[in-house]
């Protein structure tokens, strides 16, 4: 049912024991429910313990977990209705990006996001969540629609990186990312960003410039995948297997990016990660979105834009 990550090994062993005991007692017609309940309690304690001291690398694995909820999972759980739109009206439609409008309770909103696929076929069709220029341009088209109609924009970020195949270069992958950043920085409607899984460098930030930036507890946000960083830098002996060290050095976990002043709010995940209880995660996201939008919608547009500019204007570390 659940795929276990390496750091969850003690939990997997305990699970096996519990399942085995359940099977055995059922077959023998014995009642060991109290014993089993005790083991379940122990398992929960152990989960709490393990998840209270996750390394940045553990979070990288959780952020990439194949069962982690993706943008459309949250869209369908959070919004009362959602109509997806397709295509950038320039070249084509990119399945690695979703865009559309829907209702957050009573409020019309525009939603954009990266979308990964669940099974192998869908994963390939969605290019593993790596967006092409037409994906970013579709998202921009939706966001401009939000601006025109006065609807807030919600962006779900979850991508390993932007697509860098020659076809994407031909159609201006760099221009499409830069254009989104420029347009999002001046979009005359509130923009909320939720990093729900992998915040992979330029591909991520192309949908992540907004008024309030949130990260799910076990998602990551990084300038480069830690494995690639380890391969490039002599500080890690150019050794991909030292990715965990690079992950720590990059400070890419949600709490760390919040400490660095890059992210405004970290949303706690259900015990064991969002994939263990997607509904609970979705309701946390929904409540938070409503609350933050209530606040942002009170600002007049000029103040909103000034704050958005200054929010990013501040991020840097320099002196003389």
């Amino acid at each position, binding site marked *: 049912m659940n795929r276990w990550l390496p750091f969850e090994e003690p939990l997997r062993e305990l699970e096996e024991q519990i399942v085995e005991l359940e099977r055995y007692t059922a077959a023998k017609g014995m009642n060991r429910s109290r014993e089993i309940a005790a083991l379940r309690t122990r398992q929960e304690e152990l989960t709490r313990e393990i998840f209270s001291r996750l390394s940045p690398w553990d979070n990288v694995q959780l952020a990439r977990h194949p069962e982690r909820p993706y943008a459309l999972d949250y869209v369908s759980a959070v919004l009362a209705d959602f109509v997806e739109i397709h295509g950038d009206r320039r070249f084509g439609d990119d399945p690695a990006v979703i865009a559309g409008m829907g209702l957050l309770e009573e409020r019309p909103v525009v939603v954009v996001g990266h979308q990964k696929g669940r099974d192998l076929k869908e994963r390939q069709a969605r290019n593993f969540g790596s967006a092409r220029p037409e994906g970013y341009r579709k998202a921009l088209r939706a966001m401009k629609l939000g601006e025109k109609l006065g609807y807030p924009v919600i962006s779900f970020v979850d991508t390993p990186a932007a697509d860098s195949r020659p076809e994407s270069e031909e159609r201006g992958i760099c221009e499409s990312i830069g254009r989104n950043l420029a347009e999002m920085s001046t979009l005359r409607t509130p923009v909320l960003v939720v990093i729900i899984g992998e915040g992979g460098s330029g591909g991520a930030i192309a949908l992540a410039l907004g008024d309030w930036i949130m990260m799910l507890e076990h998602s990551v946000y*990084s*300038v480069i995948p830690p494995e690639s960083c380890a391969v490039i830098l002599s500080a890690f002996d150019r050794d991909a297997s030292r990715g965990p060290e690079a992950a720590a050095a990059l400070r890419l976990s949600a709490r760390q990016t919040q400490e660095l002043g890059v992210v405004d709010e970290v949303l706690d995940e259900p015990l064991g990660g969002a994939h263990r209880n997607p509904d609970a995660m979705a309701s946390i996201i929904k409540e938070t979105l409503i609350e933050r939008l209530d606040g942002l919608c009170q600002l007049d547009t000029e103040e909103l834009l000034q704050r958005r500019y200054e929010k990013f204007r501040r991020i*840097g570390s320099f002196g003389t």
Partner: protein
Amino acid sequence: MPSKAKKASARKTAKAPLRERVMKGVPDDLWVKCTGCSTMLYSKELEQSLKVCQKCGYHLRLSAEERIRLLVDEGSFQERDTDLTTQDPLSFPSYKKDIARYRKQTGCADSMVWGEATIGERAIILGVSEFGFMGGSMGSVMGEKVVRAAEEAAIKRQPLVLVCSGGGARMHEGIISLMQMARTTAAMARLADAKVPYIAIFADPMLAGIAASFAFIADIIIAEPGAIVGFAGPRVVEQAYRIKLPPGSMTAEFHLAHGMVDMVLARREIRPMLVRLMNILR
């Protein structure tokens, strides 16, 4: 694979003695090897050709100082924020040491120089990246200088000219570097709102976080011949997708052919073009 690696290393060792022979007893900077055709070029002549190989036309990389001399009216450049330096926000392994080393090598405090200048007697704001400093990568300092240059251009209502090159966002500042993409581009959006023109010149290499932020949204883009430009360099793309790219992929000419840049100009044609543009863009 192993035979390929062997060949490559054999090539290296075969070349070393020649290079040593050529270099023996001559000052380090008398001869420069062309990156394009491997010819040893006499550096005095190379200066006169603006570091363009006379044999193959390859545009060798320029330092920020050389670039500025080439573009602006003589003596008109007034540098700003010369000593701005990074504070190493992540305490990243070996970063402080690297910074000190590059500082010594280049005489620059980081990978970007900006200031005021005139081109054809027209006052402009100029920013030039320094490739020699950590591959021209963008950390807090480049980000801040690009933002300040754009803000100054908006206030003074003077055209902004940026010479863009570099390998992308600087890993050593992690997520802080990634955020420089957002803030520099936001500054360009404001400059656009102020209706001030922004001209970018792409020099080899111009990649990743720099390309996918403030560079490619310039009003007018001039690229140098043969410059590698793109989200990822050709070698990285070939490895990542296990494909073979045709020659000329991700070059200035490739982007011209696909409508992503306005013109590809030889190095000595860039200043005259800027003078013409300044005369039109009043």
